[in-house]
């Protein structure tokens, strides 16, 4: 049952993307969202705004100019030293006041730890709808946002609307949307906005920050080539066949959830609904059956090659290329063949 949008929401306009910056670095999901936001704004015939919040300085300035390069028309900027490290209270306050003043119709945030923490509290202070972890955003015929997301552990999809409230809010997981092309030389308008807060107002204090050890840092989500193994490998020792191939291709490796649960490989290597979403140029899945929870994490790959002994394995329903065979024999053969081929080409050039 659709009601007319209440009058006080009628002047809500434009698409906003929250630019997530931590310790001087913008999370790539924000650029992916600007790419998606651009499409929505064009469809609606409105402007695309970046919301940049952080301490004043070179990092903030770079985040603004990068926003132009990734498609923003304007940037709302809250520059304040209180925003140096992420804390819920000042970010919720700043963004809440900004929304109430400048009134966007759509507000997108990354479904990262920071984005989910902030989006959940902001939607509550604004008393509006928030659709989580969307995999598809579209504008429907009456100009509302149709946000589609997986549910029930990825077995189903649903499309959700926020019909009678504004802004329409949604979060999107990293790597679900494609990275937009960077366009140099674009520029836009900066609209500064104050954070009316002092440190004494903020209850939570940061005592320390313990960075993750670099040796543990896995950038699987951003790898161009990913090779992954599943239960079909039969045991942890055979993962060497996966890592060998990944290394020859200059890529990274991962696995299905049960290989993590069995302790064959570390948790940050899990690919799928409850692990990482990947968008490589080439994804090679060996001994993975292709359950829906795995599929949703790999569908963004340009090309999927599956190796499985079972010709009826589900993975052949969405892989582009398949080899029906024993991964323990095919993987080393592929490693050798790729290595020889690449050496050959390198010599020839």
């Amino acid at each position: 049952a659709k009601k007319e949008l209440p009058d006080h929401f009628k002047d809500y306009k434009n698409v906003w993307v929250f630019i997530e910056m931590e310790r001087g670095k913008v999370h790539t999901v924000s650029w992916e969202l600007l790419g998606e936001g651009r499409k929505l704004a064009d469809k609606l015939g409105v402007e695309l705004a970046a919301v940049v919040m952080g301490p004043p300085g070179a990092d903030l300035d770079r985040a603004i100019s990068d926003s132009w390069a990734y498609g923003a028309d304007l940037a709302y900027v809250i520059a304040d030293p209180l925003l140096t490290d992420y804390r819920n209270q000042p970010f919720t306050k700043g963004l809440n006041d900004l929304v109430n003043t400048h009134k966007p119709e759509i507000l997108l945030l990354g479904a990262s730890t920071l984005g989910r923490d902030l989006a959940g509290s902001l939607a509550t202070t604004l008393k509006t709808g928030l659709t989580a972890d969307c995999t598809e955003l579209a504008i429907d015929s009456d100009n509302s946002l149709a946000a589609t997301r997986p549910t029930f552990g990825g077995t189903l999809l649903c499309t959700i609307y926020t019909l009678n409230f504004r802004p329409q809010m949604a979060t999107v997981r990293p790597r679900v949307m494609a990275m937009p092309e960077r366009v140099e030389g674009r520029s836009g308008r900066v609209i500064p906005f104050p954070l009316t807060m002092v440190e004494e107002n903020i209850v939570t204090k940061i005592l320390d920050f313990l960075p993750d050890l670099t040796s543990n840092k896995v950038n699987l989500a951003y790898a161009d080539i990913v090779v992954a193994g599943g239960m079909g490998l039969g045991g942890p020792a055979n993962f060497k066949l996966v890592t060998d191939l990944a290394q020859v291709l200059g890529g990274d490796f991962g696995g299905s959830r049960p290989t993590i649960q069995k302790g064959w490989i570390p948790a940050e290597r899990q690919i799928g609904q409850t692990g990482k979403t990947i968008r490589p140029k080439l994804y090679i899945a060996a001994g993975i059956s292709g359950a829906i929870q795995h599929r949703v994490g790999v569908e963004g790959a340009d090309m999927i090659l599956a190796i499985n002994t079972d010709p009826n394995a589900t993975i052949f329903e969405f892989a582009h290329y398949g080899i029906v065979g024993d991964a323990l024999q095919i993987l080393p053969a592929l490693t050798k063949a790729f290595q020889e081929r690449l050496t050959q080409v390198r010599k020839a050039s």
Partner: protein
Amino acid sequence: MHIVVCIKQVPDSAQIRVHPVTNTIMRQGVPTIINPYDLFALEEALRLRDKMGGKVTVMTMGPPMADESLRKALGFGADAAVLLTDRFFAGSDTLATSFALATAIDKLHKEDPISVVFTGKQTIDGDTAQVGPGIAQRLGLNQLTYVSGIREVDVQAKTIVVERRAEGGTQVLKTALPCLITMLEGTNTMRRGSMDDMFRAARAAIATWSAKDAGVEDMTKCGLRGSPTVVKKVFAPQPRKDKAKLVETAGKTPADVAQATIDTLFAANTKLEGDLLKLSAAS
């Protein structure tokens, strides 16, 4: 100290099926469990109580049969349980859910002041991670999400120090009580309930509150009416039209298959060879 843990009864998601014709969810006969993420919150709450003294109240909003989950939580050692159940709550999205839970928590707080409210990181069905922050905002509690450990609690000074998972590292945060913590998974292991607790749980009286009992005055903030989001359709993912092209394997050695595969991939994407040259040189 009084600690409240919010738990949700969820379908065991591996067993959810979609009706092949109507594309609707078939819930009938699907077994339910306590949302697995909530067990980490419950265990952390029980540990805190064991250390500091006080009591743990578990709360859920759901259909009458959700009392099963509460009884299970009592069996693990929780002290009291509240079931929020009312047709006014039906169809709640996260905004309406956090409204109902926050209203009921506030009522508990007036009877016996609460120091910490725990929730799980997210559920396995709705899977939004929005209810915890929603409760915190509504009650004006300091919000600590993705907490991986509690370092110290000072009841006198009313402060708590926690470790929180952030992007690229761990934040050590100090805040004032009362606060709301969403607990990260894998941070503890649920205890086995004692025989005593099991017996107590089986006989325990579970407080059952309607919206009115919980202290809700404005029913339009509950359930479907209080929910700004509208689920338009639920559907199964489309199968892709073309299945994988299979590389010929009959009578071939793995080496031949590998060569043929590389030829196929390079032919399908002429840029791949160049990309691989660059990537493999860099690594």
